């Protein structure tokens, strides 16, 4: 079993190179809208079972997300990110697992792979709260789609300021 791989023993030890788990670590990103201290936020992130998933196509469905993220464990809930105005999918979601270990495996093996032909990104989330399912961009979608210069067919074409 995987647990035998690096256990410390009284006459031996473990090695830092084998403890490395960079994919499951916290990123530099901190949600600026989080209500609480930095310390609170990081404490929540370190025990969270919820992941933020970004760079989804607007057309990616809850079913597809469930299928892909179900590969790392049982999913408790998927919450689709919505355009605040249109109330349609705007390219992100939250995936909550029952067990943190399953979320860690998603960070290790699903983050950076493709869904609907797009490389998706996952990151730890401090936990869903009502209201967080809406985009924070001025036009109702995500901030990144406000200022984007490129054309992205899966995310409404050009960025909002370009349009």
């Amino acid at each position, binding site marked *: *079993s*995987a647990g*035998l*791989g*690096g*256990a410390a*023993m*009284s*006459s*031996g*030890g*473990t*090695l*830092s*190179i*084998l403890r*490395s*788990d*960079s*994919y*499951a670590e916290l990123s530099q990103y901190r949600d600026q809208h989080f209500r609480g201290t930095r310390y609170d936020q990081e404490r929540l992130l370190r025990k969270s079972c919820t992941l933020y998933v970004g760079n989804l196509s607007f057309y990616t*469905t*809850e*079913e*597809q997300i*469930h*299928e*892909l993220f179900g*590969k*790392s464990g*049982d999913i408790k809930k*998927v*919450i*689709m990110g919505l355009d605040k105005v249109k109330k349609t999918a705007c390219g992100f979601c939250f995936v909550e697992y029952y067990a943190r270990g399953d979320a860690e*495996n998603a960070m*290790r*093996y*699903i983050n950076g*792979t*493709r*869904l*609907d*032909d797009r490389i998706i990104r996952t990151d730890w989330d401090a936990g869903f709260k009502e209201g967080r399912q809406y985009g924070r961009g001025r036009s109702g979608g995500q901030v990144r789609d406000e200022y984007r210069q490129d054309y992205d067919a899966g995310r409404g074409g050009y960025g909002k300021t370009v349009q």
Partner: protein
Amino acid sequence: MSRRRHSDDSDAGQPHKRRRTSEPSEIEERLESLICRVGEKSNSSLESNLEGLAGVLEADLPNYKSKILRILCTVARLLPEKLTVYTTLVGLLNARNYNFGGEFVEAMIRQLKECLKVNMYNEAVHLVRFLSDLVNCHVIAAPSMVAMFENFVSVTQEEDVPQVSKRSVGSLGLFYNLSVPFVLGKELYEKKDAEMDRLLSQTESYLKRRQKIHVPMLQVWTADKPHPQEEYLDCLWSQIQKLKKDRWQERHILRPYLAFDSVLCEALQHNLPPFTPPPHTEDSVYPMPRVIFRMFDYTDDPEGPVMPGSHSVERFVIEENLHCIIKSHWKERKTCAAQLLSYPGNNKIPLNYHIVEVIFAELFQLPSPPHIEVMYTTLLIELCKLQPGSLPQVLAQATEMLYMRLDTMNTTCVDRFINWFSHHLSNFQFRWSWEDWSDCLTQDLEKPKPKFVREVLEKCMRLSYHQRIIDIVPASFSVLSPANPVCIYKYGDESNRSLPGYTVALCLTIAIKNKASNDEIFSILKDVPNPNQDDDDGEGFTFNPLKIEVFVQTLLHLAAKSFSHSFSALAKFHEVFKTLAESDEGKLHVLRVVYEVWKNHPQMIAVLVDKMIRTQIVDCAAVANWIFSSELAHDFTRFYIWEILHSTIRKMNKHVLKIHKELEETKARLARQHKRRDSDDDDDDDDRSTDREDGPLEEQIERLQEKVESAQSEQKNLFLVIFQRFIMLLTEHLVRCETGGIDVFTPWYKSCIERLQQIFLQHHQIIQQYMVTLENLLFTAELDHHILAVFQQFCALQA
């Protein structure tokens, strides 16, 4: 090799004060880093790096001896792929400092004992191999090593009954792993040939005596062509035989100590303290027996370097080392891929083929892969990224080969193949030469090949959408394409007006759309007649299949838009569900209706069943009974059914563990409370107050104890139901075939019997508890021998 002081590091942009001298913990980190990194790509030769490192460590011995001992013991245990690098290092240190060599050997023996005591079997093997190679480095005297082997092999002599006895397997495994190829390096063999011959012949007689009924359960393919899948020890034995024939010459392994022969020869050797393997106890856990997976041989890559033969020592060493690399770096996919691809000897062996074979060996391993399945998919993707010009082709070749051999592939392994291939394709725009597989179109749809393609396309659809799948396959494959996952609502059309319950369905629809409460729903449903007229016990809530039908059909139809909509519906009308599904028949009928509505969308069925179990609308036994019901016979061999069943069993298992954990935690709290009280002032003799303190916790423990027992009973019942239903189904088939004079081995039968095996294998630890019940109640001697064989194989596995 110079060791830079910490203050010499350039810490760009760091405003903190630079330390003038290095902290001990930093030196220790540095030591660990130096030791771990030796042997990696470097500008200097490995020999000069080892020489330099030995010098550095020797200088640090006065201050950091225990840390250095710990690090070296740890790399011996956890980095077996670099074994000879570290045995050489220890050899050099021993030559410079005899006492250190002695202390290292003692520390290794202590570590070995600890490993065996806590069942860390694989790591014990690495340690024994390390010790044996230390003979070649002149650290350990050969006779004392031989004495250790004799102790291990003598374990096999203890057993009179020829079983697969795991203890023997364990000890023998140890003996073998060390003897291939290190100890039986020419030098040792020449000096101690009489003892070695005796050990080998004892081993051979044990191998011949033991039975191997468990082996078929662990084989990926039921056929022996093109590559036999040998039981692990048999394969090793063949490798030893071949090595012996080659006069113990082995040239593949890097042996840095050869370059230091003149220095090492002068060193004094140590004797191993006497060592006996710890006795077998109730708690001893041994690793499952293994079968060697092979899919390639030298004919598969005619252009490239020759792949070492299946019984060659080279093959053994390469495979072991690649497995070790995965075990070391499974959490870091980029590192893992890079380490695999930089395995030495790249141009002398077809490394890509070895890597692919080793990865599939793990993915298809029975009973379970060493790591989570999705890791292998992502690892292969990383490897393709690093070797875009060569690895994808090997992978395609492997896929083709696996497809060709589907007819004899174990059903569990086919499941994993389906999951891997569909997920892999979804990362590469589903590009595949489907026409190459047109041969499956002419076969009966239940045959393994068309079945495989159907299941793959269904999984591909789940990761994309229906039209995409229609677009990616040739028109001829439409017969294998998945159904459009739409909901089937029987009360939908005006033309269904005549159906009983139609008007109530309409009524319900309007009410639900107007945000009716549970009570309003109940009152609407009261008007539904009960086709089972006789069962009205006056309380109004008896099993009424029509009520269930109308309610569930309507609700699921209204909530069909997405999973979230359906989950909300289940939550909102939970009370109605619970009431309608109160009886066992009710639960079964709810599941039947869910299936009728969503039979085109297996994924939806799975998530609904999951939610209904978690919210206790149905229980696990109901799901098991539903899966074996005649209504589901048509879908019985479909992959999604078994995903649902295994998911259900897992939920049950997790539930038992959770309550058990709660019980243990509460007991611990009580114990702590007692301890606190005992350590407090003893003057307070008020018994009543202590009772009052303990009261709530003790009550809680009692309640939890009951909960645990009830959960365990439910868990046992679930397995009994499943086994019972399998036996019924299989017996029916066998009887029908016998009386009809037809061959038993239909595709359905193969699938069914392997699904039964799968239950045993996937949940063997739990099922072990029920052996007596199973033997006395279900798998009795009167059972058809086909079915009994599965049980007997499982028993053999547990021995």
